[in-house]
Every structure is written in C-alpha cells, then in structure tokens.
C-alpha cells in the first residue's frame, strides 16, 4: 500500500490483509480516509469482488479498495469496527451475495425477509424469473 497506488484511485487488497489495510488507510495521517461511503460486491464469475469505497473529508480524495473472495466459500472479515457505515452496507451485501462477514455484530438480514430470500439475487447464477401468468409480456 503506497502513495502511488492510492493516486490511481483503486487499490487491490486481499481478504487476509483487508482489515489491516483499511485501518492503515483510515488512521495513517497522510491518507486519512475517514469515510466509508459504500460497501458492495461484484460477481466476477470465478471470484466475488468486494468493493469498499472510501472518501477523505480532509483531502477530498476517493479510493476504492477491492478484495476478491471465493464465491464457494464467501467469507470475509467485517470492517464495521472501523466505520459504522459498514454495519448496513455489509448486511446488504450479505443479503444480496451471501457473503458472511465475520465479526459483524448484527448479521440479521436487512433488506431480505427475516429468514432470507432463500437465494442470493445479485449473484450471476440467479436468473430473473419471467413474469408469471397474465403479466406475460413479450
């Protein structure tokens, strides 16, 4: 993690080092990314890419931190200890992609019903069902 990488705006991280990297980005005086704007994920087929969007109010700079995990074993450390915004963001990713955030204090479904959807809608292997019955358009 160095200045040049941060200038590009996108930083690759790994599930193992994610927490340490983000902590560094938040606390290091030369970065000071004090806001986590968004947590989301992209299903890339072989990997599941988690996207952490950081922003610094001091320097008004953006940074995207990415970490790829195995979709078959979707587990990554929760960053909700660093930013409270992750409390909601991670729960949404959990509902939509089935990612388990270890160490999340409140891992109930947020947008999904209390017992979950039963599937993970934003994964690519979930296909949108067509409309049923009378609504059938084209």
């Amino acid at each position, binding site marked *: 993690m160095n200045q040049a990488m941060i200038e590009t705006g996108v930083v690759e991280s790994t599930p193992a080092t994610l927490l340490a990297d983000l902590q560094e980005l938040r606390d290091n005086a030369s970065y000071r990314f*004090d806001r986590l*704007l*968004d947590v*989301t994920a*992209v299903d890339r087929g072989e990997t599941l890419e988690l996207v952490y969007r950081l922003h610094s109010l001091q320097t008004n700079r953006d940074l995207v931190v990415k970490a790829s995990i195995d979709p078959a074993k979707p587990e990554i450390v929760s960053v909700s200890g660093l930013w*409270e915004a992750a409390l*909601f963001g991670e729960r949404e990713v959990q509902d939509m992609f089935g990612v388990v955030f270890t160490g999340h204090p409140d891992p109930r479904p947020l947008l999904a019903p209390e017992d979950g959807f039963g599937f993970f809608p*934003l994964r690519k292997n979930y296909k*949108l069902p067509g409309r049923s019955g009378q609504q059938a358009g084209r």
Partner: protein
Amino acid sequence: MAQLKLEHNGVTACGTELYLLNMGPQHPSTHGVLRVLLELDGETVVQATPVMGYLHRGLEKLAEARTYPQFIPYTDRLDYVSSMCNNLAYCQTVEKLIGAEVPERAEYIRVIMAELNRIASHMLFIGATALDLGGMSGMMYTFRDREYILDLFNLASGSRLTYSYVRIGGVMNDISPEFIELLRKFLADLPGMLTEYDNLINGNEIFQARLKGVSIVPVGRLISQGVTGPVLRASGIDYDLRVKKPYGIYNRFQFAVPTGSVGDNWERYLMRVLEISESAKIIAQALENLPEGPVMAKIAKVIKPPVGEVYHANETPRGELGFHIVSDGSTKPYRLHIRRPTFYNLGCVNALCQGVKIADVAAVLAVLDPCMGEADA
C-alpha cells in the same frame, strides 16, 4: 410481545422495566414503510433499530436485465420525490462511461430541473416535518407550493412524479418559453412562500422548542456512519458534492452551502429551508445564462459502452447518490450498484434516537427525510 427477550438485562437504574415498541411499518410518522423497533424506558428511547426492506424491488438486479437507457425510468422510482436528481445522476454516470458530451443548453436545463426538484423535495420535507410534529396545516401550505413545481415538470416532461426527463446525452425535450415564463413567476413568488413558512412553521416557538437541542450526536460518529447531505452539513461539515466535486456545470454558479454548528434536529431542519433559497439562486443564474442550441447529443440508438467500471455521485436532496456501473461491453450493465443516501443515513437512527422521547423519534425520522423507495432499492 412481552415475552421478547431484551438485549439488556431488562432492568434500568430506576428499577423500571424496558419494553419493546414496534413503530411501523404502518405508522403515521414513519415515512413510507420504515419500521423502527424501539426499546423504551417509559417514554425514553434506549435503543432504536431500523428495520427495512419492505419496499425492496431488486432494482440492481433488474438493471442487469435492462439496457442502459431502459433503466432511467427505474431511477425515477428510487427516491420518488426527487426523480430528476436521480435521472441526472444515472445519466451522468453512463455519459462518463461512454464519454459522451452533453449540449450546453441541456446542461443548463438539467441544472434548472435538478434544483427545482430539490426545492420540491425540501418543501415536502418541511411539510412532513410539520405534520410529524403535529402541526397539520403546515403540510397543506408546502404541498400547495410544491404543486407549482410539479405543474412545471408536467409541462416539461408530461409527468408529475416519475419524469424520466434527463436522458443519456441530454434531456427528453426542450423547455418551452411558457415554461420559462412560469418558472420566473415561481421564482418571484418563492420568497413570499418562504415567509409564510417562516411565520407558520419555522418561527413557531413550539416548533423550535421541539427541535432545538435534540439528538445532538458527535460529528465523528456521523462521519463514520457514512451520513451525507443536509444531515451531515448540519453538524458543521461543509461537504456538498456540487461544490467539492462539481459535476455537470455546477462550477459555473455562485451559491452558498448552508452549514450548521450544533448539529441538532433544528439545524438539520434549517439546512433544508436555507437550501431552498440557494437553489433558487442557482436557477435564476441558469435562466439568465441559458444558451440556445440542441438539447440532445448525437448518441447511438444502441448504447454499447466500453468494458470498464465507473462511479459517479450527485448531491440529491437527501445526500450523495452514487451509481457504480460495471460494464462488460454489452448493451446491458454487468452490475449496477446504487449508493443510496437514505440507506446510509438511516444507519444513524439509533445514534440519534438514544435518550430522546418517543415524540422525538418522529422528529428524528422527519429530519432524516428518509425515502424508503430509495433505502430499500
């Protein structure tokens, strides 16, 4: 209900027992279908847990099955009281992705529409806040005035709520001289409307007493929670995307960004009131400099962006609305993620509600100005 386990040991210092109150999803003061689980000690809130998802429509998944222009009507249905701003944010994201230029006139029209929509949204906010605090007439007054803006939108786009007016590469159609004339009249009338709100709502001592000094949260906590928009600015953070990361042609306009100092409910409310007149200033400047010309760029009928990733955020009335689009080169987005301001703003409900009375839960929910269509995507 009474058998529900309490997370605390259930007994407070006074020997009173905590109990759970389920506020919503059908409750007069939770905007839309938000549900808040309140853990109460008498009238005082100990813990407030927002529960949402009642309006989840899977917009992000739907986007993967729609072409780029086809998703514009869906952005209307995100935050349905500021559709123009949503349209604008989405279209600018796609334009950034495909590298399209937007004609000058269209840029100005976009600014006019977005700021008008901001005024409309804030008017609704003022009325809803007054209603949540029990002042029923306030809402009628702001709705009357919001109606003028909706009529203007109807004139321009043919719709009063879901405009789909901003399109990729420009706007749907040009505004007519009649529109400009009516808009000028509205801008002239606006100070009168604001004075009336001042007299009826803002200036009322009961109203001020209800909001002042309530739910002050350390600003660091709000930053950590990813709160954006007027709620953050009320705590003294001068962060408005229109100024800090000017999108479109916002760098050409002179306007102030109101910021608070205390960060109580009153300032969160006041931010919106002050923003109305700032938005009016922007509109006046845009009208002044409105150039002639086309309102739509030459954009291919079928939009095929290059492979890549793009994120673009706009300042909507509720905060930072960002679209994150991953393109695989086809006509449909591979992945579209929406950073919804309401969703993250609701994260601070618990922090704001702790220690306040039940009555102020309604006030907190009002000043957060949540729009559940947006929070639930």
